[in-house]
């Protein structure tokens, strides 16, 4: 049954994935002017322009360009960055690792605090703790995170001098390593990014817990003499599939949405890469990084779906 379900999901995801690739491909052609005008000198001869166009395949009709591009992509070739001349795949992979570290840590922080607040609020509805948790979740979804990042830099770097304001490590390199020095660079951006998932997870878990506690089976458990901890375990088991699914989706959103926070902290991830690609008008790099991020999100969605169905026997595998 489960296998059939997974296959069905795969069949459903395939056209979406093609659609995503089409959107990424078309992005470049939305751009005013053509992809090469930004890198070619203003006084380039027609001959040079034609030569470059042929080299990048821009002289062929669009559908042909798309199919060629797709063929290369399916073989792991995302093209060459116009600005640096290096393969896009390498640039993107390096950045994705850094972004993934940041997004994962932020998700873990968000999940921990979100479930904590959510449980407390759900168990004690309309109490002070509940109102605090609600306020926190409204704060989490309303705060412009790039501004929060700036405020944290102002407080912890500019004023107190406790933590470094930007970068991923003391050596200024683009690679993050799991040691104490590098950890200090991770704290501010991770905390900044964790605010949104904290708010969303707290809100969801609160509603879930309150909903579960109001159900008849909880009353039955208590009636047959189960202690509060035993009931709590039942609540956790019932809330877990949805909470984990939300967490998975938040990881995807953070990975794709980290560009603003990464820009504030000069974190060498995909957001930073995208920013560079946009302002240098490096369209292959832009196309490639967006494709990788969107595909990551598609796959993550699929995994979350499958995992949720596997964990929760109540969901029909239709």
């Amino acid at each position, binding site marked *: 049954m489960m296998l059939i379900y997974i296959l069905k999901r795969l069949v459903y995801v395939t056209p979406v994935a093609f659609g995503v690739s089409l959107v990424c491909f078309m992005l470049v052609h939305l751009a005013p002017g053509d992809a090469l005008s930004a890198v070619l000198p203003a006084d380039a001869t027609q001959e040079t322009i034609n030569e470059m166009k042929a080299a990048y395949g821009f002289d062929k009709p669009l559908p042909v360009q798309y199919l060629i591009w797709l063929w290369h992509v399916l073989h792991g070739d995302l093209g060459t960055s116009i600005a640096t001349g290096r393969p896009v795949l390498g640039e993107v992979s390096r950045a994705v690792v850094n972004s993934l570290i940041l997004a994962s840590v932020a998700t873990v922080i968000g999940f921990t605090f979100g479930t904590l607040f959510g449980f407390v609020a759900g168990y004690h509805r309309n109490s002070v703790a509940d109102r605090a948790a609600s306020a926190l979740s409204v704060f989490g979804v309303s705060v412009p995170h790039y501004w929060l990042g700036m405020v944290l830099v102002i407080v912890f770097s500019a004023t107190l001098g406790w933590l470094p304001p930007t970068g991923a490590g003391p050596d200024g390199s683009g690679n993050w390593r799991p040691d104490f020095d590098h950890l200090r660079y991770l704290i501010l951006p991770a905390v900044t990014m964790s605010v949104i998932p904290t708010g969303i997870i707290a809100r969801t878990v609160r509603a879930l817990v309150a909903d579960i506690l109001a159900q008849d089976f909880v009353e039955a458990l208590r009636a047959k003499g189960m202690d509060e901890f035993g009931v709590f375990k039942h609540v956790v088991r019932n809330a877990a599939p949805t909470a984990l699914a939300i967490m998975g989706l938040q990881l995807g959103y953070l990975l794709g949405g980290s*560009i603003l926070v990464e820009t504030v902290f000069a974190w060498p991830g995909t957001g930073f890469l995208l920013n560079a690609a946009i302002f240098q008008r490096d369209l292959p790099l832009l196309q490639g990084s967006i494709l990788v991020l969107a595909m990551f999100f598609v796959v993550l969605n699929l995994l979350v779906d499958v995992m949720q169905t596997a964990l929760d026997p109540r969901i029909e595998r239709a």
Partner: protein
Amino acid sequence: MNAPITASAMALDGGVLAPSDVAPEAAFVPSRGFWGHVGHRLVRDPVAMGAGALILLIVVIAILAPWITPMDPYKGSMLRRLKHVGDATYWLGSDELGRDMISRLMLGARLSLFIGVTPVLIAFVIGSAIGILAGYVGGWLNTILMRTIDVFFAFPSVLLAIALSGALGAGIFNSIVSLTCVFVPQIARVAESVTTGIRKRDYIDAAKLSGASPLTIMRVQVLGNVVGPIFVYATSLISVSMILASGLSFLGLGVRPPEPEWGLMLNTLRTAIYANPVVAALPGVCIFVVSIAFNLFSDGLRAAMEIRQ
């Protein structure tokens, strides 16, 4: 810019169209109708009313800004750069080019609200149209429209907004276009699910039997019942839209200098976080306050509409 956000506007808007499916009250007490109840409940929600009043105040300031700013928001002075909050002349300090902060924040409300609210309004119209069409017609049209929309759901909204405006290039128009593209699929999906939900209701059949044309049914029975929920959903997007729109300007993809816009101001003031941290953080406070006000108002509206359940 001036979204129909007041309760009375909503009552006027929907009161005529919405068939009254609220349980009849005691004899001789005329029913307020659905929107009447929603308005009544909303008015008694202090948080939502406070948020609504705040939004109204900011909108009024934004509209009147060119006439009420204490100083010229564009005129700088290199000798009076980065004055602190509480300065005798510059009440909220001055920016990195010596321009009066409070004047720029007031005028900035115009552009920030405009680029934040407009995409949601346009997406509300386009998304509702797509969603209602897909939901009401069903069949293959539904499949084509909704599967296309699924493709856009494969992009996290921040990524899609930045990708589109990055490709289109900087500017207010492009930033509004990209954000509209982000919200159309989200609104269309909600509109489709609401419409599919009511398509099989008895009153639609009753209207059909009474000889109403498909267009009339769509306008009266369908639109009257789906616009409310879609509108509430759309109001919940305004907060995100404000944050994203200012975020695009923050990245240099939206409004261009020297126009005052909160996100852009935040960006140019980043260089001043050591010299004058409080002033540097002010534009973000504005974005935050507006965003939280829209969220609270939208929450109140949603709560007020949960009468039917």
